């Protein structure tokens, strides 16, 4: 029996082969540009996509959020390491601004400005903004910090080399180097609690419900209700980090 000759000539094989390999090469060249657009990558799928709301008009500066965060997550007790802290803003009559956060607000606040000089004063709880175009994940040289499919920015501490580039890149001061581990540490949105259908510690411990949290993809979620009914703003919007921490009643002095 005569052996049937293959239809594909060697020339065709090389032609299509080159085309496929070239195509792959070109695509891979363009992939990093996604990285530029989204810092890491575009959100995937229609699953949960967490967002955070903080109502400044409800915050009483008790510091329970900061304290519970330290206890829940074994954050070093020294006043240089915070995943969550509270700032006290005082706008004076002359327009000058005084910001204070003694021990991150854990021990409460005292007002250092005399009453008659105060125009207004309020508290601003701070934490990781879990940005969708997070500059910190963009700069990590090894990819140890990443955004999960749920929109949570996490760090793999077994992988982090402790170069501190992400600490420099975070515009909100939300990262620190763990003094014992030598790796970077930050808010995880208590992902270990989320896995058990519990709220993050700082949300659970807020006595005035100033902190709201939920799935931005779910139109009926708390966070979407909050966003719909308040005029919310993110901090440093000009940096285009796609922050997912939305504040109600945010004063322009807050940075």
């Amino acid at each position, binding site marked *: 029996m005569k052996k049937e000759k293959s239809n594909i000539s060697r020339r065709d094989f090389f032609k299509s082969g080159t085309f496929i390999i070239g195509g792959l090469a070109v695509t891979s060249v363009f992939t990093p540009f996604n990285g530029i657009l989204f810092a*890491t990558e575009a959100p995937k799928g229609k699953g949960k996509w967490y967002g955070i709301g903080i109502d400044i008009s409800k915050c009483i500066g008790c510091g329970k959020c900061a304290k519970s965060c330290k206890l829940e997550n074994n954050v070093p007790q020294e006043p240089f390491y915070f995943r969550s802290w509270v700032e006290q803003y005082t706008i004076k009559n002359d327009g000058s601004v005084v*910001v*204070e956060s003694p021990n991150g607000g854990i021990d409460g606040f005292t007002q250092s400005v005399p009453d008659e000089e105060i125009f207004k004063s309020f508290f601003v709880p701070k934490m990781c903004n879990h940005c969708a175009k997070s500059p910190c994940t963009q700069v*990590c040289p090894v990819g140890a910090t990443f955004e999960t499919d749920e929109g949570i920015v996490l760090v793999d501490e077994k992988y982090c*080399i402790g170069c*501190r580039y992400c600490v420099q890149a*975070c515009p909100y001061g939300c990262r620190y180097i763990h003094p014992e581990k030598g*790796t970077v540490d930050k808010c995880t949105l208590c992902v270990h609690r989320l896995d058990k259908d519990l709220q993050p510690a700082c949300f659970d411990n807020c006595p005035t419900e100033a902190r709201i949290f939920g799935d931005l993809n779910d139109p009926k979620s708390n966070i979407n209700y909050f966003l719909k009914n308040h005029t919310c703003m993110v901090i440093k919007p000009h940096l285009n980090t796609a922050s997912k921490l939305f504040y109600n009643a945010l004063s322009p002095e807050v*940075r």
Partner: protein
Amino acid sequence: MENHIQNLHEVLSQVEGYVYPNEIELNWSVLIVLYPYITGLVAGAFILASLERIFKVHILKPTYGIALLTALSFMLVATLPLVSHLGRPERAYEIMITPHLSSAMAIFGFVYLWYLLVVLLLEIWFDYRRDMVIWASQSTGFKKSLYKALSLWTTDISPKAIALDDKMGYIVTLIGVPSAFLLHGYVGFIFGSIKANPWWSTVLMPVIFLFSAIVSGIALVMMIYIVLSKIRKIKIDMNCLDTIASYLFYILVIDFVLEGLDQIHRIYEAEESFEVLHKLVFGKLFYTLFIFQGLIGTIIPLVTLATFQFYKPKENIRKPIYLITAILVLIGVFFMRWNVVVGGQLFSKSFYGYTSFKIGLIGTEGYLMAAVWLIVPFLILGFLLWLLPPWKKADSEPEISEV
């Protein structure tokens, strides 16, 4: 650890205004000042060497070999302060194995290796191959085997082989010049691309880094050439020195203009961060910026070199002045790196206050460690000059001893 926390408490008591609590600790310290400084010296020294090779500025011949070996000595040390500064230095290799491509820093390992292996080592190898073959035949024992190994056991020194070496060396240098630009422009990008930090985030940063790198590299080679000639009791080729000085002058002018432009732009735009930076510059950075970088490192050398462009005093006056100028420029560029790296971390990203910088004498982040990383390249250079003396090369020009 205890010490570290104690230090931070001390810094906390010196905080002015408000800084985010995580910002009290200054994350990139003197070792990260050294990193752009040392890579800059490498790039600058190489560019000076390539002037001779590519642009045929033969008057620079006496410094060609010195410049190449200087570049190599500093290149070998360039990554060490960086790695020793990591929180987990034992994981440093991850940056090469699993680089995260959207990170400016991830590419450093590759740029570094490209520059070290492909450009510097190859160029030096092609340049010295014939001499290593000759030296191997003239020496005995260990040195003989060392030269043999370094020449990769090649023995062909026929005119044809030498012509090929020369051609290959030329091609490598041709690749090397853009690579040197890439190496240091890239280091500038690491800082310039951080949008969170208004002191760093400027599109001019890579260009400024590049030109200050060239300035520092030229000054370094100038200094080494003068000191080396003194040690070897050899007469300095004043034509060569004058030419180097004029290059230093031109590049220094460009560097000064670029940095000035950057500052004028900041002042005129006066963005949100202007007040905090203004106070920073006239406060915590006053001495390092205006005195060390500006006056000592830029204005005095500029005026001196400009004067020498049209009025040249006698040789024995010019020589020490060139030496001092080179040292001043080196100090100035060091403080330029300092002002960028440390200055960029002294103010809070809230723009409401300042932290302070405290550094000890000892410890992995101390001044002594930094001094070690600055001295080691000179020791390596000493060894390389002993092993591969440019003045003993077959094609080197005869030197005149100083009486």
